[in-house]
């Protein structure tokens, strides 16, 4: 088999805020400094720009202002400026407003955006700069020469369900680059592989994740003023679960509504999607949504761990930026500006290295210096222990977060976290009995398909589609499913997956068998993160497949 190869100076894997900011910054440096033009390529697994992008979202425009100073004139789609905000603690049927908005949650000067529209707009800026933006191509493998990253191999196309080559078969392309910038997002498949091959995570705390679920609703347009931002804590989560809800109002009655759940919950029968449904059933939320209708759905994991969980983000021939590295401020619930900023700093590092003709580890290390001297560290370092403090429960977490603001994060010794999947308890531990066969989530609620939805219906509204005739892109050691997982954890994949990918079917002899509905996958990465045995590996499906988050 002959593989095509393509040689570029800088390869950027992932067309999100980090990757696009890196690409644009490279072209700006090129323009400012002249010289032999750099060849730059951006890979994006979605069929079109922004299709796999999901966020709340509120944008802190600081990085955007530095990258594109005239962003307003250039038509950046900032949907509404935040002008009114509230934080509530929900009880089962009531709500208590927080008397003051905690400073990290103050959003004055920030804007509500659709990250999908924002990324599509950023793409037009990148394409106008003449950069090759390849949509529909996933990064499947890392090409290495010893400890040096030399490029990425894209996924094959036209492989049938049983691994056979179809008439449309096309082998993936080897893209060789002097510098590869990995911007493959939260739990990126290539970054995960990098961490396995190189000792990048050895000095970092275990990464922490959450799962964000979001719906776009249309409600009567006079109900919630555009620019209103509401965050909630408490119900339907218990003291032991981390997370909360968000409601962002946009013009014409459009509302972004979502719920974030820490992927470190203890109850093996807990279902994050049910928590989202229960959130919508809370009288405060259901009254807002009454008479409206849901038009879009999506789900995506978030890196919550903060500064101490960020791995070494530089290596010989490679850099990591954005969510792939874990650059998110979980206290401010923001990461887009950090993704953009790290993308820009990665671009500056790569540009200098290529110009110097030295892309070795020693040169790439200057990326870390750039980050340490930037607003990224200034913002993340003081709150480095906050997420870990929530591991002790909601109230200790809140108290600690408050204290961090006062002390600017000083602590004699940093807190340690545990990988989220290790915190999940067995049925025997949590329920004190091994004698029952769980059939439903512990937080199950009624599904009316108007306010609350089953996962399969929700998936339809994510616009997800994959060619059915391809091998499953979720690699699972299914022996575990048929043997120990049922009695130990009651098949938690069925519940933590927000897209009905995993189903347990009883074979005629009563043996549970895992059915993987891979074509439902919304690429959120939760299964790869939360499975207690760590036997699920998410690999990219054929390029172009996945959700279609138009307007999300």
């Amino acid at each position, binding site marked *: 088999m002959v593989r095509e190869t393509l040689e570029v100076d800088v390869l950027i894997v992932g067309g999100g805020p980090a990757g696009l900011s890196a690409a644009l910054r490279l072209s700006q440096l090129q323009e400012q400094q002249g010289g032999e033009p750099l060849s730059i390529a951006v890979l994006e697994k979605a069929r079109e720009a922004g299709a796999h992008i999901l966020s709340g979202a509120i944008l802190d425009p600081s990085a955007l202002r530095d990258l594109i100073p005239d962003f307003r004139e250039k038509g950046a789609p900032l949907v509404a400026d935040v002008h009114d905000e509230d934080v509530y603690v929900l009880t089962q049927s009531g709500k208590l407003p927080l008397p003051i908005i905690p400073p990290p949650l103050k959003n004055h000067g920030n804007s509500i955006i659709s990250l999908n529209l924002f990324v599509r707009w950023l793409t037009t800026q990148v394409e106008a700069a003449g950069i090759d933006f390849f949509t529909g191509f996933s990064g499947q493998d890392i090409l290495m020469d010893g400890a040096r990253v030399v490029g990425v191999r894209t996924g094959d196309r036209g492989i049938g369900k049983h691994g056979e080559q179809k008439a449309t078969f096309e082998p993936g392309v080897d893209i060789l680059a002097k510098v590869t910038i990995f911007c493959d997002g939260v739990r990126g498949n290539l970054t995960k592989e990098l961490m396995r091959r190189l000792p990048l995570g050895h000095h970092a705390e275990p990464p922490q994740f959450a799962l964000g679920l979001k719906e776009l609703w249309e409600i009567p347009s006079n109900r919630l003023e555009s620019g209103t931002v509401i965050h909630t804590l408490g119900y339907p989560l218990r003291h032991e679960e981390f997370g909360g809800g968000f409601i962002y109002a946009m013009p014409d009655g459009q509302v972004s509504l979502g719920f974030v759940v820490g992927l470190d919950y203890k109850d093996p029968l807990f279902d994050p999607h049910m928590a989202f449904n229960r959130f919508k059933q809370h009288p405060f939320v259901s009254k807002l949504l009454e008479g409206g209708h849901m038009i879009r759905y999506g789900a995506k994991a978030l890196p919550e761990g903060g500064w101490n969980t960020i791995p070494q983000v530089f290596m010989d021939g490679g850099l990591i930026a954005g969510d792939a590295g874990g650059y998110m401020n979980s206290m401010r619930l923001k990461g887009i500006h950090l993704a953009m900023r790290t993308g820009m700093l990665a671009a500056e590092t790569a540009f200098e290295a290529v110009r110097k003709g030295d892309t070795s580890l020693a040169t790439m290390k200057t990326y870390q210096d750039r980050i340490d001297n930037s607003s990224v560290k200034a913002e993340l370092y003081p709150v480095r222990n906050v997420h870990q403090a929530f591991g002790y429960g909601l109230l200790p977490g809140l108290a600690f977060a408050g204290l961090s603001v006062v002390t600017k994060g000083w602590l004699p010794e940093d807190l340690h976290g545990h990988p989220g999947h290790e915190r999940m308890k067995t049925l025997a531990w949590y329920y004190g009995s091994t004698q029952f066969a769980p059939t439903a989530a512990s937080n199950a609620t009624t599904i009316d398909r108007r306010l609350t939805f089953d996962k399969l219906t929700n998936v339809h509204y994510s616009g997800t589609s994959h060619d*059915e005739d391809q091998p499953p892109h979720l690699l699972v050691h299914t022996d575990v499913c048929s043997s120990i997982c049922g009695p130990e954890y009651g098949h938690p994949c069925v519940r933590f997956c927000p897209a009905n990918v995993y189903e347990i079917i009883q074979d005629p002899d009563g043996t549970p068998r895992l059915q993987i509905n891979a074509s439902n996958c919304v690429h959120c990465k939760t299964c790869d993160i939360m499975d207690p045995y760590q036997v699920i590996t998410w690999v990219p499906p054929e390029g172009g497949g996945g959700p279609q988050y138009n307007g999300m």
Partner: protein
Amino acid sequence: MILVIAEQREGKLNRATWESVAAAQQLAGTTQQLAGGMPITIAVLGAGTGGVAQELASAVVSEVLVAEHPALDPYTPDAYAAACRALIESTSPTFVLLPHTYQTRDFAPLLAARLRKPLLTDVTGIVGTGADATFTRPMFQGKLAAQVKPQGGPPALVTMQIGALRADAALKGGSAAVRKVDVQIDSSSIRQKPEAPFREAKQAVDLAQAERIVAVGRGIKSQDNIPLAEKLAKAMDAEVAASRPICDNGWLPMERQIGSSGQTVAPKLYVALGISGAIQHLVGMKGARTIVAINKDAEAPIFEVADYGIVGDLFEIAPALIAELEKK
């Protein structure tokens, strides 16, 4: 004038053309008496179109044009776009209607771009008649229906969703004149070189053409029970189809899958055996005229779209249906 572009292959008319004829008649305000309304012309393109034009001449329309050219067989988007463009420029229609088939999806965008005229795709309904009519088309995967009015015509190109109108709603009983027209196609402008159709495609069932369908879902329980559905289908002279899990398990081939990741169908009769009716399945079959659902779960969403619902065990009901059907 409204121009309908018919679709045929090897002298066999695609049934969806009649749906576009029905749409054209509605848009024109045609009545059985031919009184008033905009005139309608049907164009048949190809090489060796056989009796297709005569078949269409039975519709209540003004004229059927036959444009035959060797370059039109086998189909290529460049040749079709060139031929349609010539026809449109010589007849100056107000609207051009096409069935939203795979072939139309292939060449209609090119045609619209060449003409620099608006293209409304996947239209499900027409409000009003004549030049002021507005068109309904789905947005957000069918969640919203938008009313659109083309600008920048005439003509406006309109493709009709399969099953949006019924083929038998087309008014017939006319005897339109059939006229041959010459089209010039510069063969050097055809960039595509079609190869022989895939063998798979030859064997493949075109469920969109089926008048009756028996579809099975997870309620069938095991591959061993598929013959029961096949027997029912045979007794009804129907095609067998399935929901996603059945095809995913390999119990039936993928080309028989109905739904958002399979085919969209609009048969006269759709019998759903043990199908719960997830929205992914419903979007592929809700255009069926009569839906019969057999499911043991009375709460199953399939009953929300079914015209006739039987809450019960399909393993009792299907054999009883077969026995009744075979009596005849």
